[in-house]
Each structure stands twice: as C-alpha cells, then as structure tokens.
C-alpha cells in the first residue's frame, strides 16, 4: 500500500457502470473546481444571475477566491477588509 502525507484529490466522477449510465452524470460542469469552471465557462461564471443556475455555491466560492482584489491586488477573497 502506498503511503504518503500528501492528500491527493480525485478528479473523476462516474459516468457509467458496465454500460449503464448513472444518475446525474450529465451535470459534469457542476463537479469542476470553481476556478477551473471559470476557465471553461468564463461568461457563465462572470454573470451573477446565470452562474447561480449553472454552478454550485461551493464552485462560486472557489471562483471568488481566485478573483484578484482591486485594492490589495491579491486573490484575497475579501479578507483584506478594504472596500473598492
């Protein structure tokens, strides 16, 4: 058994088993990490109204954490506590 302190994350979801499709496989986009989803579907992610239809709240949070703050110039996710 391989042992490692590094916590690796899977990047796979099941689509079908022995040729039988599993439920929800069509919502592939909802399993992308938020920052990656923004790269793949930038227009959908940037539009506040549309993104809530397509993405999960977790993805939106992940995306927001990548946005560079206009004040501190870092992806601070609002933690710099300054206001634009």
């Amino acid at each position, binding site marked *: 058994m391989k042992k490692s302190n590094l916590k690796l994350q*899977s990047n*796979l979801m099941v689509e079908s088993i022995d040729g039988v499709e599993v439920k929800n496989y069509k919502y592939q986009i909802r399993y992308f990490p938020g920052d990656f989803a923004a790269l793949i579907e930038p227009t959908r992610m940037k539009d506040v109204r549309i993104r809530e239809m397509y993405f999960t709240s977790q993805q939106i949070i992940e995306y927001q954490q990548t946005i560079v703050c206009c004040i501190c110039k870092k992806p601070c996710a609002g933690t710099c506590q300054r206001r634009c």
Partner: protein
Amino acid sequence: MVGFGIDFGTTNSVAAAFNGREVTSFVDDKNLPHPSVIWYQGDSPPIVGRKAKDQIRAFENTHGNKFIRSIKSQIQKKEEFNIFGKPKYTWQVASEIFRFLKEDAEKRYRNFPVIKEAVVTVPLYFNGRQRRAIRTAAEIAEITIKTFIHEPFAAVVGYLLADQNRWDNLKQRRENILVFDWGGGTLDITLVKLDSGCLYEVSTAGVNGKSGDYFDGILMNYVIDKFQKEKGINSEAFRIELGIESLLLNEVEFSKIDLSLKHNSSIELSDFYSDNQRSYNLFQDINRSQFESLIQLQIQDAMGFVDKILHDARLQASQINQVLLIGGTSRIPLLINEIHETFGRTKVIELPNADTVIAEGAAIISYYNWQPYLVQPIDIQLADQSHYTVFDSGTILKPDTAKKEVVFFCTDNREGEARLIITTNFDNREHQVKEIINVPVSEVLQDIYKERIVADFRVDRDVILQVRAKGSVKDKPIYTEIHDLCYGLRFA
C-alpha cells in the same frame, strides 16, 4: 466425487481428500506429512520427501548432490537456482513437491482418483505474486488450483467440519477462534472470526525460524555439549562425521516429539565419535524439564505474540471462544500449559490431526466448491469526496463474477492526468489508499467535455485485482495489479 486439498508447507507438505463423508490425508509410511525437501542428483529425477530429508546431512556437502529446503519461503524470488548447470526458477523447483504429492497419492492411495485439481492453502501474508508462482508450480505438475485459501481458515474448516456434529447452527454461530499454528519453520497466530457462515481474519502475528527445526538444533547442541563434558573431550577438536550428524538430528527430532508425550526420552547412537583409535557411543537421557528450559524464551516470545493479537483486536482472552493448536511444535506441553493459563483449559483444542488438518480443511472446501470473498470493499475516491464501491464486501472473488467496467468523466484536466484513487475501508473506518493510477488525458481545456476514462476492474484466479485504465491520449491502457486484497471464506 472427491475434493482434494494441498497444504504446501515450508517444512512439510501434505495432500488430503474428502469424499463427502470422510477425510483422508495422504501421509507417508510413518503417518507423517512429507518433508518439503528436494534432492537433486545429477540428471536423474529428484527425490522428494522423507527420503530426501533423511539424506541431507550425509550428502549435502558431497559433490553431485543438491538439496533444496523451504522453497515456499523463496517462491516469489526471481533468481534462478543453478541445478548442475541448468537454471531453474523457484516455481520449477516447487513443482517437484506438487508432482511428488500427486504421484505418491496415486501409488499408495489407489482408491482415490488422480489429483487433477485442488484447493491450495497459503499463509495470510502471501501476496498475489507468491500465489501466482504457486499456481505455476502446480500447473507444471498438472494440478489445476481451484482456489487459494488461507491456512488458518482451512484449519478452522478442517476442525469444524470434519465432524458432522459440529455442523449444527454453523450459520448462526459467531465466534472468535485463535488459530495457533507452530510448525517446523514458522509460527503463525491468527485470530479468525466466524460470523454467519463466513470466516475472516481479525489480526495476525508470527515469526519465521524459531520453530520446530530450530528447536532440533538447540537440542542437538545441548546433547553434543553434554557428551563432550561427560567424556572430557575438548570442544575445539571435536568433529563428528556428517552421516553421524544426520543420524543425531533424526534422533533428536524423535526425542523432541517423544518429550511431548513422555517425561523422559533417550538418545542412543553407537560409534558416535572416534578419537585416537578410541570409539565412543552416545547414550543420553533427556527429561522434559531440561528440554523446556532450553526453549523457554521462545515459548515466552510466542505468548507475547498472543498478547499482541488480543491487543490489536481489542479483545480480552475471555472473549476468545476456541483456541486451535496446530503444527507439531504446538504440542509442546510447556506451551500448552501457558495457553491453558491464558484461555482456560476448556477452550483449548489440541487437534490429533494437527499436521494434516489444513490439507483436510482444503479438501472439504474443494469438495463443496466454497469460494473466497472480499472482506474489505474496493472503492474509488470521487471528485466530490464521496466514494464509488467497485466491489462491495462479500463479493465472491471469482474471475467471472468479480469484474466491472466503469467509465469516468474528468472534472479537471489542467494537469494532463486523471487520478484514479483506489481505496478500501473496514468497518466504515477511514478510507485507506491502496493505489493511485495517473491516466494521461488531454490538457486542452475544452476537451474536458469529451474526455472519458474507461477503467476495467477484475479479480483473477490468484485473487489479484487487475486494473486497466485508459484515457484519450494513449492507446495503451495503464495497468496495475493489487496483490493484497483482504479476503475471507464463505462456507455456509
């Protein structure tokens, strides 16, 4: 119909048959299992078993003779043996033992059909490579291995099912059985759980060496020391002929066995030693307490392993329902007393067929065609932190049932690889990673919608999980094998 079982042991091997009513072990002329010793002499076919063992000391250092012992413990090695200039792989050497067991049964137990297929037992710690090598060895001897079963499970089956009366309520019984297997070469202690017709391992411990053969050596040195002191012979100048040493080792072994039954034993050898034209006979009385004082430390160590097993399983000695003592070394009274003290006299079962019970259990398993089953499920970690179970616990591990093709989609291709993380868990504890397979995928971001990973999971005849996984980038799938599946036996 007859079911055959083979206990391919480090020190001794034996086959057994079960015809639905009674079990028969194919032991040698002395009613003992066959020593796992192979004696090559030039181009002639090798001699296997007791005949070979009896001649080790006499011919081991003589040109034109080569003895191979404990081949089982070397079975996974890739190096070849050099047998008089001819290279032989370990499994080719091991095949001689299977061939011998088959031919000996054919010659001396004529009421039974020829052994063409059998259930073969393996230690718990044997991995898939070792099982595969044993299968190759058996196939060279034209024996097909129906399945591999762990030795302690076969022992429990051999004990529980040999007697028709013990079959009652077996499906309902829940017991903790400690299998204490101390043979010539190894000590293996396993806590086996019997639960609703299934057997599985809870914890295990043991050690190689420090067993029956080692005790023979200790006793032989003691006898020689005592002889030198009695006769006033200088130990530095003391040399005995190899043939005599071989005879002494035999005598010592029988004396050791004798001391498990009686309080005293004696060793006699005429013309044991000659010095300056003077010949000495060996005559020594040995009593049980002398022998026990020589091996006291090893017995304490063995009891330490018992404590460890109970500690690992978080059980008290009172929670153990039965203790099975198997293997010749577990007949030593000092050990039996210690086990009685720990578990209580009534729970300890001293099997009269301790040398053959494993093969007998395997024969019963073969007759009923019982199969190994998966104890710990095989899961795949998914991107949303959940797990998909490829094979659930309880899956029968046969090639035609334990197979599945799963198609995955990728949720992030920025690193150019998909991570297939194979895990297992026991009793719903934390998942443990067994293997990570990195499958190359396209790094073009928009290809994410097209990218699919096709993974094929199947368990082969040697209880090895084979995984093939393929993405869109390479034509050839990534292949890996998992050799340490945790499996039990379902028998009711």
